[in-house]
């Protein structure tokens, strides 16, 4: 079996597509997370392949499904946080020999194939459908929802994992060298860190609307607070530290106006879900959470970095696509879990959605109001990457758990959890899911 990458036809990139044809007919049921770590410690049992198996098995158990009932597996094959296995570095043979291998010795260590997972999960005896959703969980969720809706699989696992090795973020490889090939040189010679483009968009936003970086502090404090209520998350598991305004505003700059905390912390993690048809989901162990729509943006900036005009046009377009396919309006959202890693673009997502009626330029003022899980306008109840480390998964897990009523200490209390939205990553180019407690 050779696993294909999802074709373009599986994504809903355009406006005017109408209600999603599988609205309410696909459900998420099981959730599984492996323990997090700041970096890989080199042991076989903590490599990215091993933690992925752990997360998948937990999702299966959570759903209460026999492994032989599972017939689909969607995987995000890229697992790097920005850390790569250095060329010429010796291979960890003890780790490699601990697993059934594919023809790539770094499979399960610095990347992940569906074939590697199936070779090491012998209990998955009936998987007939495998597919890659490139990038992040948001993408893979869209693929999984569409695949289940289309009947390509009826009980499907979907997983995203991350590896993080020793060394500083993105500082190895070409960035440590004395020369670059001509094509990457055109964009990389000037040395912008990963958050630079977002920092620019935020700077333009502040100039246009008369806002300033300090106004992010309530959002950051709220996100970390919510993250510390996420027992699966990095900060809750390893560094249970609040992030008050003083600490946030005193932190060092990375690419001003983006500071250290505006950049999510890279970690080892794996998160998995079990999706099924709405009909089959009725008999599973957890309450089904129904998918009302999935939507995508494949917009690219005209040149090097997206302008604020491009960002606002595309987030508004994304909002319209999300609502159109789900057959809902902004007023139907109980809460939002849009992406936040980097924190400085969360407001673009909110404004594009028109969450709680806010318009362009108003989100930072909105952050100064009650955005907690106990109020009427919860913002990022998952805490997102700010609250739990880089995964691009927490937001989806939280939507499922909120709507199942088992978000624990994060459970929203100021609103009745009926419909949530999650997705990302970037304001231009992302994938989004609308979740509902009811199929209707």
């Amino acid at each position, binding site marked *: 079996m050779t696993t294909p990458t999802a074709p373009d036809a599986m994504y809903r990139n355009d406006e005017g597509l109408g209600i999603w044809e599988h609205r309410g007919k696909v459900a998420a049921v099981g959730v599984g997370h492996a323990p997090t770590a700041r970096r890989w410690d080199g042991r076989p049992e903590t490599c990215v392949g091993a933690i992925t198996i752990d997360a998948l098995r937990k999702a299966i158990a959570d759903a209460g499904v026999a492994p032989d009932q599972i017939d689909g597996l969607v995987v995000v094959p890229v697992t790097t946080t920005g850390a790569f296995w250095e060329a010429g570095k010796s291979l960890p043979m003890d780790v490699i020999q601990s697993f059934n291998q594919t023809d790539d010795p770094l499979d399960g260590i610095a990347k992940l194939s569906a074939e590697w997972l199936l070779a090491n999960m012998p209990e998955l005896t009936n998987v007939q459908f495998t597919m890659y959703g490139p990038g992040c969980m948001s993408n893979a969720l869209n693929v999984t929802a569409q695949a289940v809706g289309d009947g390509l699989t009826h009980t499907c696992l979907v997983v995203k994992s991350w590896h993080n090795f020793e060394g500083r*973020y993105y500082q190895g490889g070409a960035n440590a*060298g004395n020369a670059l090939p001509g094509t990457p040189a055109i*964009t*990389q010679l*000037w040395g*912008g860190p990963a958050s630079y483009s977002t920092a620019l968009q935020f700077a333009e936003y502040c100039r246009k609307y008369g806002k300033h970086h300090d106004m992010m502090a309530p959002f950051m404090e709220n996100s970390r607070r919510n993250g510390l209520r996420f027992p699966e998350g990095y900060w809750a598991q390893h560094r249970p530290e609040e992030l008050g305004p003083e600490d946030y505003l005193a932190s060092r700059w990375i690419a*001003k106006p983006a500071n250290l905390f505006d950049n999510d912390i890279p970690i080892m993690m794996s998160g998995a879900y079990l999706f099924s048809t709405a009909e089959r989901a009725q008999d599973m162990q957890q309450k089904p959470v129904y998918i009302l729509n999935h939507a995508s943006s494949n917009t690219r900036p005209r040149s*090097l970095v997206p302008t604020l005009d491009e960002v606002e046009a595309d987030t508004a377009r994304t909002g319209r696509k999300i609502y159109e396919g789900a057959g809902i309006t902004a007023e139907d959202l109980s809460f939002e879990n849009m992406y936040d890693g980097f924190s400085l673009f969360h407001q673009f997502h909110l404004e594009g959605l028109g969450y709680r009626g806010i318009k362009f330029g108003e989100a930072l003022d909105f952050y100064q109001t009650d955005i907690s899980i106990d109020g009427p306008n919860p913002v990022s109840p998952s805490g997102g990457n700010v609250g739990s480390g880089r995964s691009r998964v927490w937001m989806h897990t939280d939507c499922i758990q909120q709507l199942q009523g088992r978000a624990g200490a994060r459970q929203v209390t100021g609103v009745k959890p009926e419909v949530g939205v999650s997705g990302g990553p970037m304001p231009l180019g992302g994938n989004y899911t609308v979740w509902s407690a009811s199929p209707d």
Partner: protein
Amino acid sequence: MAKQGVEPDELTQPFWDAANEQRLVIQNCVDCDRLQHPPSATCRDCDDGGNLEWKQVSGRGRIYNYGVVHDCPVRLLQEDQPFNLAVIMLDDDPGVQMYSHLPGVPVDDVPVGAAVEVMFEPSANGQLVPEWRVIDG
């Protein structure tokens, strides 16, 4: 600032050759009459890939936006931290952007909107690289 050297490849050889002659060229699609940067093998707007050429531009622009880099992933630039990293929009087509360290401009005191003109600086291996200097405040 000592930028990494450049080893021109097939796609970008004309861009870097022109830079060594202190000329700024940008990819242009003859079919749709549109500049594009960064360069690519095909026109991003033409369904059939377009008809690309390299077009010399005026070398004038405006500072569109900037950030200040305090934690740079590129080793050779780290000794110069913090430094300005601006985005220039070309007068020839304001949708086309180029990066600049804005030599001579104090850190975090960047005149957004100011006019700039291109200049060329040697990188670590001698390849000239386009940079931009402010020509009015």
